[in-house]
């Protein structure tokens, strides 16, 4: 038996596969296809203080190997969530990670406080990609200081035993900087990545495809960006657990994130395509580990950073090595210097 257990802060999950926030519904929808108690965790759509009707239609459009959405966080608000959705999940013994959102630090803190006594909350995930109405609509995730302030407030409002994850956006110049700020501010883990900011225009109507004009890009299309972010942040903060996501469709995709440094993974857009995606990914990941003779998932978290064999193989004076190459590198950013990791 492969040991799939994974830890996020003080919480141990039986396996690393989760739904991604906003892509697994309330649990009921997917519950028709599999037992949600079998998931590592069910991550809820981002819950806000009040009910929200979301954005007008059209809300979602397909792009190559991705989807672009502007659903606008339609949701019931924290009260209805606590009385209607959470008990249903608790009954099924699902581990629930509650994604929270708000328009100001105060709103996030309020939701976190209301979750304090709720039974069955395994962790809180802070969706830092919301615009801060107190800072001219600038996204919290865009600035290390704003993200840190948010994390600190939520951490203070949530009970100590509940781990707090900060979910980061890749739409920044330096995700490592934001990640460090969040970790310093007390985040017990990091989820990454959220969607990329995108847009599509309908060439028939000559208008934006989404009523929201711009929208949020997800799916396999963004996987390389997500893997890069997880790799970079794990290199900088090897001790901070990461929930990796962005375009995971198969067990091998999940393994890719684990090798990059993720302790757990979330499946988002793939669930729109295949309602059984989460359990399929879990099954395939388990199979892939077995096939590779890996007994414990935890052993390979971040493995792509440090395979001694390959590491030394790369240090070859003939290579005109990575290190040497960095100086004159072209359109690509400086490559990670493996030797220093």
């Amino acid at each position: 038996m492969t040991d799939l257990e994974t830890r996020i802060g003080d919480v141990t999950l039986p396996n690393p596969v989760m739904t991604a926030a906003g892509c697994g519904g309330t649990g009921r929808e997917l519950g028709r296809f599999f037992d949600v108690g079998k998931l590592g965790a069910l991550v809820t759509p981002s819950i806000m203080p009040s009910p929200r009707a979301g954005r007008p239609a059209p809300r979602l459009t397909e792009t190559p190997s991705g989807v672009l959405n502007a659903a606008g966080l339609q949701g019931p608000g924290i009260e209805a969530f606590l009385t209607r959705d959470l008990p249903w999940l608790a009954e099924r013994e699902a581990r629930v990670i509650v994604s929270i959102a708000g328009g100001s630090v105060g709103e996030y803190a309020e939701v976190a406080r209301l979750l304090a006594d709720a039974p069955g909350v395994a962790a809180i995930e802070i969706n830092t990609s919301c615009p801060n109405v107190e800072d001219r609509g600038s996204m919290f995730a865009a600035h290390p200081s704003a993200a840190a302030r948010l994390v600190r407030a939520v951490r203070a409002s949530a009970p100590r035993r509940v781990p707090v994850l900060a979910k980061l956006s890749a739409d920044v110049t330096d995700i490592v900087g934001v990640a460090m700020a969040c970790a310093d501010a007390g985040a017990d883990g990091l989820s990454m990545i959220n969607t990329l900011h995108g847009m599509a225009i309908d060439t028939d109507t000559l208008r934006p495809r989404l009523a929201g004009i711009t929208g949020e890009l997800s799916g396999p299309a963004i996987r390389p960006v997500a893997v890069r972010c997880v790799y970079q942040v794990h290199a900088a903060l090897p001790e901070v657990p990461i929930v990796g996501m962005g375009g995971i469709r198969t067990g091998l995709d999940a393994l890719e994130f684990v090798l990059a440094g993720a302790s757990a993974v979330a499946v988002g857009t793939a669930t729109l395509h295949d309602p059984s995606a989460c359990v399929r990914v879990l099954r395939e990941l388990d199979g892939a580990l077995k096939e590779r003779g890996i007994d414990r998932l935890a052993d390979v978290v971040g493995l792509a950073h440090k395979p001694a064999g390959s590491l030394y193989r790369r240090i070859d004076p003939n290579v005109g090595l990575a290190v040497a190459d960095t100086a004159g590198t072209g359109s690509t950013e400086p490559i990670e210097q493996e030797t220093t990791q």
Partner: protein
Amino acid sequence: MTDSPVAPVQVPGTVLTVRRTGAYHTITLVAPGVAERFRPGQFVALAVGGDESSMLTRRCFFVHEVKPEYGGTVEIVFAVRGAGTRWLAALRPRDILDVVGPLGRPFPLPRHPVRCVLVGEGHSGAALFPLAAVLRQRDCALHFVLGGTDSEHVYGTRAARRIADSTSVVTEDGSLGQRGRPEDLVAAVVEEVGAEVVYACGPTETLRAVTRTAAQYDLPAQVAVEEPMSCGTGVCMACALPVIDDEGVTHMARSCVEGPVFRGERVRWDDLGTIPFDAYGAPRSVLPGSLS
């Protein structure tokens, strides 16, 4: 979720036949488990493009017919519209594709034999036939109104004539039946047959007009909408439209789980493509004076 009474299944579907019917394509799939769960008005959500497809959203289609053969077959009738339906039209027998269904809230059925008008436009007419079969079993009188842009784009006139008490056909160019739109005929048919309920399936404009006509005669209209969907299973929120609930409150209802069948007068047709200001959870107005 005011959802399908039984849980859907997800199965690999095997193409049995692909045929052209007028402007449409008809595919019959062997999809064990769907047939016995299916109720009229429900739909299936198909994965398109194969394993390495760049197309991630499901394509949804009303079920035209189910049969118990081979563990259960499902038939859909569709128009080629974009890349997904183009791919479906190119399928050949024995090809395999992922099927999820049956999905959505079916047509509510009358307890007693009543006189029904069934309105369909274009390919959507196909969705009426499983309904007609069940209504027939319940000894309902059936009156079809089928329309489309031209004779090629009217589905099922022959089958309707076989099963129904009357069938009226209308095309926009007059190439088949009368010239006009289906809704133009509904009032006349309702009056003539003394209809007690109207069922409809088709584009939004048709459903809105049919709903209005039914309301004029104080009849319930049960309409199946075809709002753009992405997952079909209720997780993505793409298909929400403003619908009034029993307490009179407007909710943004997902048409894939709370529909596709709605009571026509509950749908806020004039507010599609908006979040009505009085909807549950609508953004607080920036101009309170002018909006509330």
